[in-house]
């Protein structure tokens, strides 16, 4: 399915905070995103003039959840001038969107046993994935404050770096324990080190993994070639060849 052409203005319909994160809600009347797809987001007003006179370009943000009525949610974390501006938006403000973009996760056969592995802001696409296809969510966070976002999932298992909530240690400890029980399909999104560890665990247990990557992007639709990732087949654009890649194909 293709995306509507061009940047479109939609209105912010909802905003709520969960721990350090902000959930922005809007309605895309034109189309429905698939789990793992993303939009380029910018505020319609006052985009620019922040720290070091940024932001300038849109920000690639995963779709967190989509409903049949077209309502769509994004999970944001204020980590720079772009996400800061997006987190400051109030109801009724304009959002400029391009999307939905990229190749989402591929559905597994019905009845397949899914493991969803998320780290930090990378949990976002797994929320909608679990709503659509189910699966057991293993979530890693810095601390209990960040781990409040686990409430977006049904029946999650939590790990934190400092042990203030759930298991103390990396989320891949949880993954290892689950894979020792029985092999399953892995869907993961999170920081690069986490994804590298998930890829290794998947390989050593000989299970398939679909990894949603993040990369700074200028355009999101294959024009700039700025977001490449090394694969066994050379550099590939995260925006149009991903953002979901088969873990076995990543270099």
């Amino acid at each position, binding site marked *: 399915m293709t995306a509507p*052409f061009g940047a479109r203005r939609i209105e912010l319909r909802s905003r709520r905070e969960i721990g350090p994160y902000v959930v922005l809600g809007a309605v895309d009347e034109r189309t429905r995103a698939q789990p793992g797809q993303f939009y380029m987001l*910018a505020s319609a007003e006052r985009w620019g003039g922040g720290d070091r006179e940024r932001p300038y370009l849109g920000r690639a943000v995963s779709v967190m959840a989509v409903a049949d009525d077209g309502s769509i949610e994004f999970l944001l974390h204020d980590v720079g001038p772009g996400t800061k501006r997006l987190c400051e938006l109030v109801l009724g403000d304009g959002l400029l969107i*391009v999307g939905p973009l990229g190749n989402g996760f591929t559905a597994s056969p019905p009845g397949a046993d899914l493991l969803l592995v998320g780290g930090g802001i990378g949990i976002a696409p797994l929320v909608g994935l679990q709503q659509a296809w189910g699966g057991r969510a293993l979530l890693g966070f810095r601390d209990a404050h960040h781990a409040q976002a686990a409430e977006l999932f049904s029946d999650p298992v939590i790990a934190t770096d400092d042990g203030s909530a759930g298991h103390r240690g990396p989320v891949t400890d949880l993954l290892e324990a689950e894979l020792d029980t029985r092999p399953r399909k892995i869907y993961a999104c999170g920081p690069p080190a986490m994804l590298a560890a998930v890829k290794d665990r998947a390989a050593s247990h000989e299970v398939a993994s679909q990894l949603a990557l993040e990369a700074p992007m200028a355009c999101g639709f294959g024009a*700039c070639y700025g977001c490449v990732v090394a694969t066994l087949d*050379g*550099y590939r654009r995260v925006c149009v060849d991903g953002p979901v890649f088969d873990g076995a194909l990543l270099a």
Partner: protein
Amino acid sequence: MIEFCGLRLGHRVINASGCFDVLAAARVFGEELYAAFPFAAYVSKTITLSAREGNPPPRLWESAAGLINSIGLPNGGLDAYLEHDLAALAGLVVPLITNVMGSTAEEFGKLIDALEDRPQVAAIELNVSCPNVATGLDIGADPDGLEALMRHIRPRSSKPLIVKLTPNTADVAACAAAAQAGGADAVSLINTLRALALTPEGSGAWLGGGSGGLSGPAIRTVALAQVALVARAVTIPIVGMGGVASGRDARDLIDAGASIVAVGTESFRDPAAGARIARELDDGFTQNAR
């Protein structure tokens, strides 16, 4: 209709090379892309003789009102372009301008020769921002070298040749005049300005390729100045570009001497920006406001 180097264009806005990949965009946006195609001509990304993988990431850095990139001209090489891309571009609804880069006059010659009998290619843009191995200067930064290059390739091509000038030179007007003296049909400018992005810690170059090229609104006034200088030095048409984000920006470049304008980084923010800018430009001309 606008006439530019023998090409008939629906309006005055085209894309800057490397800032729009019509084949990728067609996969993303489908039929809507062609139905509302934003550019009056499509300029390909740079094609080189051999395939190039491009520079290691990171390739991008957002700067103040702009973007620094170090992409490294990834492309499948001339043969893949001729075999695959040209066939895939058959659905293009506007003239195709193919951008090529060689590291020597001989390489440019081979690229030009290969495109000569391809009627689909309406014009050729020459990326002369490649370092000359002997001098270390960009070929296009040295007027004498640029004129010699043009004299080598001009006789080999019946197609309009557009020289994409580099702004990273002491005298852009002299380079433009040299391109014209060597037989160029048009010049396009400005290419990106050489720029350096440091890691957040300031400990070294952020970009995998080292330094990069700055684009976006940050360079708009530089583009305006260079287009004005070049317009006084040549009689051939000018493609003006550099930070164009609105019809007003486009009109400023045209007032400075450009015949048509190209949109680059603004298309990253909105793939349909070219159509909006063309519309705004048209409205401005209609009202004759200023």
